[in-house]
Structure formats: C-alpha cells, structure tokens
C-alpha cells in the first residue's frame, strides 16, 4: 500500500514538473509569436498600429486588429503595412477595410441614419432621466408644501416631539 502511494506520488511529481516545464517553455514561444514581421520602419509600424488600434478583429470581436492573435488580424496588419507602402492615406485605408468588412470593423461607428440611436441614445436617456428627476422633485416639493400647512395644534405637537427627542443625550 505504502509502495503504491510512493509510486503514485512520484508520478504526480513528474507530472507537476512536466507541466511546469511545459509552461516555462511555452512562455518564450508565445511572446516570440507576438513579434509579427512588419518591417523595420518604426514610422510605418507606428502608423499601422495606430490604425490597427481602431479596427475590430472580426474573428474575436472584442479585440482590435492590433491586439488580436488571430491569423486574420495578422494578415490585416500586413495588409495595412502594404497599403501604407503604396502611399495610401489613413482615410483610404479605412475605406479599404469598410468596403470589405463593413462599418462593423470600425470601433468608432460613422454617423448615419441607421446609427443615430447609437450615437444619441445615451444623451436621450440622460434627458429622459433628467426630466423624470425634475418632475419627481417638483412633486416632492409640492408634498413638502402640504406638510407645511399644519394646523397650529399639529405644529405644536410636532415641535414638542422634536424637542423632546433632541433634548435627550
């Protein structure tokens, strides 16, 4: 029984060491993959990254093309570099992307009739909230006026109660 336990323990240890080794080995590999060849021109790369930061990766939709590790994102980064080399302007590159993938690739959607609600919806909600708040405070103030209209007896009773409470330590 004890021997079996030892054997199991040893296997477990080997497993743990193996896993840790794999983990340690995998780290440099993963970070090596991050450096996607984009040429060694820092200006081109900076411009590419600026554009890639405002474009959505359609494979993993909550990431930008700059962040994503998807194959397509890497292809599109290379495509942007190529377009920059062709002397295209930022707007032309953005048009290139929207012509293929639609407005959805833009993290800042354009102003259109179909996106009016998207742009002004939050403002609309603030206005509705403000109006509601204003009206409810008005109502409360009116209720406040009602409270002020106490009969003299009620008022003296209220004073008495309040004073008694406040005179206590």
């Amino acid at each position, binding site marked *: 029984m004890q021997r079996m336990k030892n054997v199991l323990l040893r296997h477990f240890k080997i497993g743990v060491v193996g896993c840790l080794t794999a983990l340690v080995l995998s780290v440099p590999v993963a970070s090596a993959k991050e450096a996607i060849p984009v040429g060694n021109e820092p200006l081109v790369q900076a411009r590419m990254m600026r554009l890639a930061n405002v474009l959505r990766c*359609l*494979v993993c*939709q909550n990431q930008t093309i700059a962040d994503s590790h998807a*194959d*397509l994102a890497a*292809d*599109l980064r290379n*495509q942007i570099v190529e377009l920059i080399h062709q002397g295209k302007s930022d707007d032309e590159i953005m048009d290139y992307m*929207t*012509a*293929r*993938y*639609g*407005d*959805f690739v833009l993290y800042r959607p354009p102003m259109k009739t179909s996106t009016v609600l998207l742009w002004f919806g939050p403002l609309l909600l603030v206005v509705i909230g403000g109006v509601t708040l204003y009206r409810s405070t008005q109502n409360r103030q009116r209720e406040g006026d009602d409270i002020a209209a106490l009969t003299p007896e009620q008022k003296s009773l209220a004073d008495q109660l309040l004073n008694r409470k406040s005179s206590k330590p």
Partner: protein
Amino acid sequence: MSRFWPLAIFAALVAFLYVGLHRDPHEVPSPLIGKPAPAFALTRLDDPSKTITRDQLLGHVYMLNVWASWCVSCRDEHPILVEYVRRNPVEIYGLDYKDTRPEALAWLDQLGNPYQAALFDSDGRVGINFGVYGVPETFIIDKKGVVRYKQTGPISPEVLTNTLAPMIQNLQKES
C-alpha cells in the same frame, strides 16, 4: 397611468434583450451585397498553370464556397454541397483559403469534389477582398458578376433548401 411607465420601460428592455439573445454577433452583414464581386485571378487548385478570373465567370450564376482543408466545420458542410451539385444543374466554385495544395487535393479526394473548379488562394488575399473572416463562407454571384448573398458559417440543409437553392434557381432565370 404614470405608474405603468416603469413596467413599460422594463417590457421594452426585455424585448430588446430577447431579440439580442437570438442574434448571432458573428453574422456581420456583408457590405459586398448588391455590389460587383471583387476581381480575382487565381490558379486552379488541381492545375497551377491554369488561371481563372472573375470576368471569365460573367454570365454564370455560381456559388463561391470558401473552404480549407484545416477548417473543421467545412467537413459538415461538404457532403451537403456534394449532394446538391449531384442533383441540380448548379455551378459551385471553391475558394481554397490559406491552404496547401497537397492537403487540399487529398481532402477533395477523400470527401468528394463538388466544385466546377477550386481556386487556390494561398495567402488569403482574395479572401480579404471578399471580406472573409470565418471559413466556411459562401457567396452567391449572379450573371452580371454581382454578389447577391453571403452565408457565413457552414450551410445547413435547411438554409440550402429554403434560401440558397431557390435564390440560385431565380437568378438562373434572369437574363
């Protein structure tokens, strides 16, 4: 009356969320629909010396099926296409996306070849021009070379019989 307002707002919110729950965020509407298909000139998968261009296919109604041998869900879709071509007078062109020739050819040997011809897009450049972001994708292109429909993801038998097949039949009648 005013006390029903919160209920009304809540109901509206529930309606929005309910609709949102049933929408697939991966189905992004293609901006290509109603526009001419992007130009391409690609070699045939089975013969690197022969090139097929978009303009050669003008006058044909065809499905352009983007697939790859590494694509898992293409395996689900493939037999449906093989069967469809066998039973109907339709043209399907394959766009072999970011693949290698030997693997792609072996794949077609094994699973059947529904394609009039498969085009070999090794670097995915034509795929980018078509706005491909998830293989398989299928485009329907009419006789004038205009993209009429895009299906993202594998074609199911239901989608084929209810949407794609009737659409192709109608487009074939156009002059």
